[in-house]
């Protein structure tokens, strides 16, 4: 029964400065559903990109055997010819084309360059029946839900006579009903002989569909658990996913925790486009003076969505709930209001949401609080430079001068500019979203030190992070989120990677 269809051996993939994958092994048997599990950034997606030819065969080390034959794919089309089809998290569908056109996009059923529409729609209907989607093939993609679009992607894969189907977080954007339907379909296709690899960290899904689970941690394959050997249990998976070494150092601090500064109650947020999805459910949390509170959660848990919806409704729709500051309800429905009430949000995506990359350091630092430097609408340039020079020194921003363009700085220094900007707005509550993402170890320590100092100055700090050791190293208290619900609140003394991961993967009641 256990006939291997895919063997990946010794896969090592290096990006400038980072080893994304290190000697990874993956064995997938014919006709099974194989799950790949790991924390955010563990290297799951990179591995699948290696397999599907997104990264050409000469850009990584190691061997891939598919149906006992070596693979040296130069592009996705090479892997598709062999029957390996990957469906990415962000669907690759054209919203204005019909279902049928999307299914055969790049693969048109045509004779002498002219599309045969009858055949296209007929074949599309057959494929739609196979994936259990009851839609007219001429319907434009934008008129069907994300869940159905996901099924169209699978129909598209089937049209290419797929042997190995790779799904990258297929249910991340789906509501519960659509998720169940999708998982049933995967099992159904398994019955028809299609092998699937599914990237997921939703443990209930994995228990439902997976015959085997390979765990990736920090770019290494840790182990493969098999259902027929009774190895797929929640405890085994969690143990494999965490257990990362504490490789960073954290500054010593003695928390001086005061009264409550900010409280969020019954916060509920809907997805901005897909109204059937609630991204944050009745979340309640608080943070006190001088306290560093962590928000832990896996991809799609709703941490950033929660933070941005509180910060001036910059995410989501139909936001409901209350925000209290020092016990009094406040209005944070626009960014200027939120800033006026002393809230600052430093984004996880510096380049797109945090900085004006074509502008210099000082103008970025002053951007959120220009009135503090101005009289009657005129900015005092000398004062601005003085302030910026102060932050350059205190935050140790490495640049020739504060007139340097931020786009040319390293990630760590860009992050310090973002933090300087928000510190200059003099907030009481700072929400820092992935403050050390894409930053090297040395700069991380500096960021941790800055966070510790902010708390020591009496600021309330909320840190969103995907790195559990980091949260354990700098927080006083950690909330866990799972699928939009606050599933746990753990004081630091009781927190460990295992307990946090347990809550982070907890299903709602």
């Amino acid at each position: 029964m256990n006939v291997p269809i895919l063997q990946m051996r010794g896969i090592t993939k290096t990006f400038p400065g980072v080893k994304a994958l290190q000697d990874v092994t993956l064995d997938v048997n014919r006709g099974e559903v194989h799950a790949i599990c790991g924390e955010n950034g563990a290297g799951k997606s990179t591995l699948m990109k290696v397999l599907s030819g997104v990264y050409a065969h000469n850009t990584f080390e190691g061997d891939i055997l598919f149906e006992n034959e070596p693979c040296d794919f130069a592009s996705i089309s090479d892997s598709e010819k062999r029957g390996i089809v990957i469906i990415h998290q962000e669907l690759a569908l054209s919203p204005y084309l019909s279902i049928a056109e999307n299914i055969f996009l790049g693969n048109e059923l045509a004779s002498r360059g002219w599309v045969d529409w009858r055949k296209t729609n007929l074949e599309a209907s057959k494929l739609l029946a196979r994936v259990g989607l009851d839609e007219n093939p001429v319907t434009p993609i934008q008129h069907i839900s994300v869940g159905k679009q996901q099924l169209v992607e699978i129909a598209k894969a089937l049209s290419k006579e797929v042997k190995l189907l790779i799904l990258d977080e297929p249910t991340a954007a789906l509501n519960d009903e659509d998720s169940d339907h999708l998982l049933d379909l995967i099992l159904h296709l398994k019955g028809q002989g299609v092998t699937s690899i599914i990237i997921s960290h939703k443990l209930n899904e994995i228990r439902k569909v997976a015959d085997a689970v390979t765990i990736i941690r920090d770019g290494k394959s840790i182990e493969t658990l098999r259902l027929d050997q009774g190895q797929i249990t929640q405890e085994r998976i969690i143990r494999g996913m965490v257990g990362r070494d504490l490789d960073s150092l954290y500054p010593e601090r003695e928390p001086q925790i005061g009264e409550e500064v900010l409280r969020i109650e019954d916060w509920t947020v809907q997805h901005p486009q897909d109204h059937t999805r609630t991204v944050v459910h009745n979340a309640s949390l608080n943070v006190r003076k001088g306290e560093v509170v962590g928000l832990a959660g896996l991809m799609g848990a709703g941490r950033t969505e929660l933070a941005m919806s509180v910060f001036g409704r910059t995410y989501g729709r139909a936001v409901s709930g209350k925000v209290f500051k020092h016990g009094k309800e406040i209005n944070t429905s626009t960014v200027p209001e939120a800033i006026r009430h002393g809230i600052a949000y430093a984004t996880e995506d510096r380049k797109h949401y945090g900085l004006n990359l074509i502008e210099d350091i000082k103008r970025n630092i002053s951007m959120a609080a220009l009135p503090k430097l101005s009289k009657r609408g005129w900015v005092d340039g000398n004062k601005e430079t003085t302030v910026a020079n102060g932050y350059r020194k205190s935050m140790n921003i490495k640049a020739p001068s504060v007139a340097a363009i931020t786009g040319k700085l390293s990630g760590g220094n860009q992050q310090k500019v973002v933090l300087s900007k928000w510190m200059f707005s003099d907030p009481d509550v700072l929400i820092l979203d992935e403050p050390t993402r894409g930053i090297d170890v040395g700069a991380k320590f500096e960021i941790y030190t800055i966070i510790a100092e902010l708390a020591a100055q009496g600021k309330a700090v909320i840190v969103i992070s995907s790195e559990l050791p980091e949260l354990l190293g700098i927080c006083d208290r950690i909330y866990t989120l799972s699928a939009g619900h606050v599933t746990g609140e753990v004081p630091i003394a009781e927190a460990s990677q295992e307990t946090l991961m347990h809550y982070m993967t907890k299903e709602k009641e």
Partner: protein
Amino acid sequence: MSALRESLGFLASRLRQVGIFVALILIVLLFQVLTDGILLQPQNVSNLVVQNSYILILAIGMVMVIIAGHIDLSVGSIAGFIGAVAGVMIVHWGWAWWAAIPACLLVGALVGAWQGYWIAYVGIPAFIVTLAGMLIFRGLTLITLKNQQITPFPDELRALGGGFLPDISGGTSVLEWLTVILGVGGTAALLFQSIKERRVRRKFNLENEPMAWFATKTAFIAVLMLVITFLLASYRGTPIVLLVLAALVIAYSALMNNSIFGRHTYAIGGNLHAAELSGIKTKAVTFRLFVNMGVLAALAGLIFTARLNSAQPAGGTGFELDSIAAAFIGGAAVQGGIGTVAGAMIGGLIMGVLNNGMSILGLGTDYQQLIKGLVLLLAVGFDIFNKNRAGGGSSIAKRFKLRTTPPATETKAPAETKAPAEPAAPVAAGSRQSDNS
């Protein structure tokens, strides 16, 4: 030697800004030769200023709109419409010029508010709204004028278009001394300001231009201003529009560099999301930019009408294209966030000299358009070429093996990785507290 190297390296790193300036000078010299010296004759210099003043005024507003990441195709029609409104107010209704001018500027503001509303608050792209505006206000111009020109205008208004400052010597001198005083005073003020700015930059440890380059550049600009002063003074003196234009350039340069409004405009064009998340009221800023554009378009319309002494159905046609071209030749970026008022003025002058020089040579509008189009394409193409060659002019500098000014990238590795061993924390804490207090 090292000073020269440093200067050349600096020039290479600022190829765009320097290049546009050099291009203007080369074009002036070229036409000076081709026209046998007619181009720089006092009367022609005076004409050049007056003929291009309304395009330059439009270019001020246009570059601001472009910096914010938008565009305005309607300014020519608005200028024409305001000319028509002025004609009706002054000629038909008999309003005094001092009442009609502010009234016309107000109408311009309302027109700008109309367009700004659709762009900022409804969210229709500026290209569409102002394309519609181009048709709407041309239509309104024709309706207002009933398809006929309105003329004549009173002398006071005509002075705005073609008038000169009075001769204080009472006709006894070949030079207009008031112009000399203004020109020399302006040059001195510019020198003073440049030196002061350089001092401030040094005081705050910001990079300065190399001394040799700074001295050459400043001396050159000063000489240029004095030459223009002399040329104007030996004809009929300072055109009144030049004073208006100079005041606008100074005021708007200051506004864009030193006011909250100007800063927010750059922030919006540079990264709209980051600006929004920094609490900038992006819609209000966009709205005001278009109101401002409307007022400047009204002013340009008034000046144009005053110069022709007639409000015409086709007045202002094509102004939008010249002012957009001026902004882009002057270094504004299509995707927003980059551009200066001064750059747009140089861009406008390049277009103006091309127009004027080619007219003197007797080239028809056919060739004029062809050449202007190619100049615009080359100027922006040069920008893109430079950008694609990774990091602006530095690549060209490398090709010539020149040492450029130190790049703004930092050297991260050694110092940063050392940080955990010797935390900079205590120092940081102290200085930060003082910032926040």
